[in-house]
């Protein structure tokens, strides 16, 4: 996984919960079928418009609610590059790191608008807004997780730890 992510912004508000990202009624379907319904409760066009590498920018408490990793699975299926939010819900944040979906917190995401071109440096916690010519401070990856993210998530990390190639 790269530590530099570049992409176009789709902008959302506060409390984007896991029932919105991955509605319960579709969770038993294969991920490609679930992904069609991702975010549809608040943005019915999401699955059609989103492009690989796009960045989701939201307000407070992104990913609140369920443990369901189907939320990460559908966003990864759409090849979302990263999520930037004022804050994340605990389980969502943890799951994202475990599956190698970059998540970055920054103090005030209202300065970013839909359609902006962002470049994120995960190691430095730096966010450059090329559209606005601005630079923001985001959170860096926690030290103890950098190796895991470098390897691509928890599974490759465990493989290394357990000596499985």
């Amino acid at each position, binding site marked *: 996984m790269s530590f530099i992510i570049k992409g176009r912004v789709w902008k959302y508000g506060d*409390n984007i*919960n896991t*029932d*919105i990202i991955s*509605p*319960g*009624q579709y*969770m*038993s*379907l294969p991920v490609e079928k679930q992904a069609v319904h991702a975010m*549809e*409760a*608040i943005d019915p066009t999401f699955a059609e418009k989103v492009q690989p590498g796009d960045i989701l920018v939201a307000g*407070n*408490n992104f990913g*609140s*609610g*369920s*443990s*369901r*990793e*189907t939320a*990460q699975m559908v966003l990864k299926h759409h090849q979302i590059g990263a999520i930037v939010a004022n*804050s994340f*819900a*605990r*389980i969502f944040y*943890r*799951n994202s790191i*475990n*599956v190698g979906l970059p998540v970055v917190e920054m103090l005030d995401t209202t300065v970013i608008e839909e359609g902006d071109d962002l470049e994120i440096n995960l190691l430095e916690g730096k966010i450059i807004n090329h559209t606005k010519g601005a630079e923001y401070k985001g959170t860096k990856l*926690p030290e*103890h997780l950098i190796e895991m993210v470098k390897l691509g*998530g*928890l*599974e490759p990390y*465990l*493989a290394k730890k*357990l000596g*499985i190639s």
Partner: protein
Amino acid sequence: MGMTMSEKILAKASGQKSVKAGDIVWVKVDIAMMHDLLGPWLVDGGFRRLGGKLFDKEKVVVVSDHCTPPATVQQADILKFTRDWARAQELPYYYEFQGPCHQVIVEHGHVRPGRLILGTDSHTCMAGGLGAFATGIGSTEMIGVLLTGETWLKVPETIKVVWDGKLPHGVYAKDIVLKTIKDIGHAGATYQTIEFSGTAIEDLSMDERLVLSNMAVEAGAKTGLIEPDQKVVEFIRSKGVTEEIDMISSDKDAVYTRVLHYYASELEPQVACPHEVDNVHPVSAVEGKAVDQVYLGSCTNGRISDLRIAAKILKGKKISKNIRCLVVPASQHIWMQANKEGILDILTDAGCIVNMPSCGACGGFTSGVIGAGEVVMSSSNRNFRGRMGSPKGEVYLGSPAAVAATAIEGKITDPRKYLPKEVMV
């Protein structure tokens, strides 16, 4: 400096004398719990790629509850996968069609004070009602836990919530927790433990304490803890547990980030309005809102004391012709108890439909999901947009008493109206 319950349990789990909030520690897990929807069918690939050997099958509990009974072929396939996986792993603890996982692991003695429990469901925190540190994790993380029995956790800070005094008639644990979540906010306890204490909490039955810990995650909390007491000991002994019980408690000089103090006697029935659990108002503010469905059940409020309250309210009455009322006991054990007590007769005579114990419509999975424009009054734990079916539906949350009273009138109703003092419980 004193330690909180969270710090003590995580110190023990990490083999250290003491830890403090903010530390990141490697911990050994006492129980790894998975359910059908986020369990074996999602973890199996990674688990096998990494060797496929469980760290300790006695510490792995699998509960099929989300896809039961299956409503689609896909759900049936998931259920079969889960059952086959549990058999292939020779798991001593596999439960199917017994009810939501959180209730099942409590009823079968897997939850004990001082234990560290991780589960693939956000409401795993319910086990905190018995003094276990319990929290939700994702499926990928569970792969690591299954293989090694370990993971890393950040030791959480703790918010202490004190409820003193006596609850008034017609006001319940659900009202306590809704009011608490309103004040802390949807994300106010993120990365923290909520510790419930005070005389009103001590007075609560085991059934009601579990309501508080179940919903701690709705304020973003990592877990919701209640100090174990004699009621907890008796409850655990009744499940056949004979080993010594770790009566863990926070030290008097433990450090809290916040302390919130309430007086139970001032509390009124509360209702969480669409589409956030912290959008809470006194029932008087939403009285009269017409509903299409009433849902009495879930791991939050489908226990025997909840069904008893509903039966007191609905005895000899009929539910509104304009609605349907679904009752979902939180376990097969509770179903049988309710049957024995005549509660199911009372509820069905009133016009309720009793569904089998499962996660059911609470998470939008089976049996009772709602369509566009439909409104539900539910005793469950979450009212997010689209949670129970259509994103154009609305879910209100209240106590089982408020739910039962609403069933009679077909509109949101103050339960105190149907609870004359002599029959108050």
